[in-house]
């Protein structure tokens, strides 16, 4: 029997998974947009984004637009690879769970 893969713990958190999935469909996204799409609080969202940033899965860009601060997030190549790997592992696990 082939060995089952382990799910990446950084991505497995529900909010972090949602954030990476959202970012995979866009070029970059603002903090407020991510907050609206996930229905998360500022504190929780900031903490989870920081974890993703520390893992190298997202990159942050801070700038001012019409004198208002704007924080933009984009998925890195490493993040894309990690999400792809996570989905692959998830499908493999699901297949094993259905067969069991």
């Amino acid at each position: 029997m082939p060995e089952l893969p382990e799910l990446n713990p950084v991505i497995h958190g529900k909010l972090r998974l949602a954030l990476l999935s959202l970012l995979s469909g866009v070029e970059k996204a603002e903090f407020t947009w991510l907050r609206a799409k996930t229905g998360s609080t500022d504190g929780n969202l900031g903490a989870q984004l920081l974890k993703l940033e520390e893992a190298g899965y997202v990159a942050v860009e801070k700038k001012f637009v019409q004198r208002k601060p704007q924080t933009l997030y984009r998925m890195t190549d490493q993040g894309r690879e990690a999400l792809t790997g996570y989905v692959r592992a998830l499908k493999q696990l699901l297949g094993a769970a259905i067969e069991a």
Partner: protein
Amino acid sequence: MAVSIEEQELKSRLNLIENMISEGRRSTENWGWMFIFWGVAYYIAIAWATWGHSSLAWPVTMIVASLLAAVLASRKAQKSPATTMGRAIGAVWIGVGISLFLVMMSLSISGRYEPHVFIAIIGAMLGAANATSSIILKWKMQFGCAVVWWAAAIVGCFGTENQGSIAFLGALFVCQILFGIYGMILKSNKRSARQRPEGAAHA
């Protein structure tokens, strides 16, 4: 039982990924107001040129509308994330808009403006933009708009001036005003559907 719960959990993660990816891509569907805006701008220019008998009607209306559209669009774009699909569609419309503006202004200034040519060029170019956009978005309804514009362009070539004008005004109403309202209703329905509690994702 434990296996079943784990299986459900894994499936819910997979669903979450799918939902969030499509959520990000939905940001390109929010442009119904732009169709209405340009439809109204065209009607203002036509009314001004017809009843006001002013040669300034088209250039002034189009320049003011372009500036206003650019300001409104950039404000709206700041709230939504940039997507490759959104940029592709934006590129098509900006390209067509600039082409139409340059050709129409040149025809008008050179004194070679002719109603049949006007209707044929606008119909063909808006048909092309709608068709390209509909293929990118996989949106059959918008392809219907392309067909209506192409039909108006053909009537412009073969019909009388009156027939061409009626076809143009009809296409304008169907493809800009009605289609714009339809787009906005569609967006509003999708927004209400998304506001259900299961859309939230917490850690």
